[in-house]
């Protein structure tokens, strides 16, 4: 596998104004503060974290839907490497066809005044990629692939259910044959029985079209199902990144441990033993010094945790952690003996 996207030291600061009326010192909210990672072609990288940790901002900044404050976004396309962060507006427009986004709320992300066909075809028109019969063909192809009823393409979004709308949003993202898609909470607004349909659709499309996903979600079980690797974000920084299995069953950052212990087990007889985090999530405008997690961490004991920002480093192959104690801690992961019970009623059903 080759690297498709490399994000280096990406920063997204939002100005909050001055510290006080007479101060020259400006205050920034560091929504994304120096995030670096690589995405391999054809993989799904999950991005999890509490609300307010900067997941969505990171996803948007990578696509430059908002202008990042600093950093590089290297996109390897065929023979060359483009730094996405330095492109001007018209170059950006041309590059966007390779990178698309699927939003959380399919009720808000589709224009109610456009028919489904217009919604899916809009980007083809805007980029002058196809017209006339050729365009129709591409729209039909992608609609079919996304499981839409092609006889309903002249209808408006309100005629569709949430799951169907999310399929429309996926078709719209895929019509230009992009290589990379940011999925921002693609199933959280959907009913439980529909989530599986969309998760499976995303998986099938990935195989068929060789897509690379950045999968942002807060539902840890859905992330486990959808992703090859997972990164955990806390207050604008990545704290751990590893393969899904390693991250869930052998986490090495105390914050990940707390997250994993809070997943309700499959088997109701297994008691949940969550690690409780002390206190509240700090205000991102005034993050704690040193390791931002130290006030809530039960392993933070040294002066280093309070003063020195831990480096995000590879502790074992493919397992990156930013914790001063990463080498010495043994943490518990999600309950491992969660073998799905074969329902006895299944053969009847």
């Amino acid at each position, binding site marked *: 596998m080759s690297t498709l996207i490399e994000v280096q030291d990406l920063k997204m600061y939002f100005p909050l104004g001055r510290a006080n009326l007479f101060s020259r010192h400006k205050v920034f909210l560091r929504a994304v503060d120096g995030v670096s990672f690589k995405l391999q072609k054809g993989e799904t990288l999950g991005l999890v974290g*509490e*609300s307010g940790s900067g997941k969505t901002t990171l996803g948007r900044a990578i696509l430059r839907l908002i202008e990042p404050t600093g950093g590089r976004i290297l996109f390897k396309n065929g023979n060359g490497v483009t730094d996405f962060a330095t492109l001007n507006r018209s170059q950006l427009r041309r590059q966007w066809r390779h990178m698309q986004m699927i939003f959380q709320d399919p009720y808000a992300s589709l224009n109610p005044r456009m028919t489904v066909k217009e919604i899916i075809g809009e980007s083809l028109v805007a980029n002058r990629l196809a017209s006339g019969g050729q365009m129709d063909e591409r729209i039909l192809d992608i609609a079919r692939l996304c499981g839409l009823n092609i006889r309903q393409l002249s209808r408006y979004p309100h005629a569709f*259910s949430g*799951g*169907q709308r999310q399929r429309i949003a996926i078709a719209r993202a895929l019509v230009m044959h992009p290589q990379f898609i940011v999925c921002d909470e693609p199933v959280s607004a959907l*009913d*439980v*029985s*529909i*989530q*599986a*349909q969309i*998760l*499976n659709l995303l998986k099938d499309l990935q195989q068929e079209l060789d897509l690379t996903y950045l999968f942002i979600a*807060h*539902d*840890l*079980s*859905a992330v*486990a*199902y*959808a992703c090859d690797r997972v990164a955990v974000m806390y207050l604008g920084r990545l704290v751990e990144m590893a393969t*899904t*299995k390693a991250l*869930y069953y052998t986490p090495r950052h105390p914050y990940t441990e*707390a*997250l994993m*212990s*809070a*997943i*309700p*087990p*499959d*088997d*109701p*007889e297994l008691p*949940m033993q*969550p690690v*409780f*985090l002390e*206190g*509240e*999530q700090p205000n991102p405008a005034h993050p704690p010094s040193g390791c931002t997690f130290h006030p809530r961490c039960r392993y933070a004991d040294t002066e280093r945790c309070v003063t020195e920002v831990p480096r995000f480093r590879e502790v074992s192959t493919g397992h990156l952690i930013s914790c001063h104690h990463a080498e010495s801690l043994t943490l518990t992961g*999600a*309950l*491992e003996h*969660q*073998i*799905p*019970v074969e*329902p*006895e*009623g*299944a053969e*009847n*059903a």
Partner: protein
Amino acid sequence: MTQRYLLRVKNLKIALRVDKNFIPIVGGVDLSLESGKVLGLVGESGCGKSVTALSLLRLLSKELKIEDGKILFYGQNGDDAVDIARLKPKGKDIQKIRGGTISMIFQEPMSSFSPLHTIGYQIKEVIQLHLNVSKEKAREMTIELLERVGIGDATHAVDRYPGAFSGGMRQRAMIAKALSCTPSLLIADEPTTALDVTIQAQILKLMRDMQQEFGTSIIFISHDLGVVGQVADEVAIMYMGYIVEQGPTKEIFKIPKHPYTVNLLAAIPRLGNLQARKRLEPIKGTVPGLFSRPSGCAFHPRCNSFMSGICDGAFPELKEVSENHCVACYLYTQ
């Protein structure tokens, strides 16, 4: 057998008024809750679980009407049951029950407090309304309650406005408010859905602790089977206004009977599936709209074991298949 039940709902029917017609939303719910137990009510959005819960406190909006059925609430001391369905929604009797012996926690901790009054004021209000105590005593009790639910520095927090509280803190304050008069029944409508997992775990533990300490019975409404499995003694699964299966939590998870329950369990991403690398099996189709309710068993168009001529005929009755385990499906009623 004396006083086994705290609450029994019999054939509860709720309809929604659209123009001049009434469309059934909840089509005949039977529920029973034993004293001191936790009942999980599970279903997808629009299946009628919240409406059922609201009707228990007669909080339904004007468009919704209880058409038929009984809501028998036995109360603590075991005297005569009150039929809540017969009470006037704005009468004195129901107001005594609301917040006093039955209280409720809502999904959105952001919108369930008034932003214009302090947290302390809003909790104190409930205490003073239901218990005959002085202002000072009520304030003391409020501070104690806030400490109980794990809000640090409660003596100061009591005078803060909801805006200064995070989502998790607000939900904890909501629990404090709901438990302020030691109700015998607590209705929790998706209490953790809007919260992060780590906070969700805290809230679940808090609810379990409170239940044990005060002996409160809980009706826990959620769409998340994993969460329900952790807190509930019994689970009832709802689909399109009917309870399709009810039984002990363990049995529902290990030997689900109704095809909808079976499919739902197979469609949810769970960590066990991660290890087994099993593909999720989605339920085909979508939940039909209110105006196009399928005949007979509402699940039949999506069911894999649909029997033509049987399932689309009359609605299947909820029948007991093993002890305390009821299913409404023709597969089990031959």
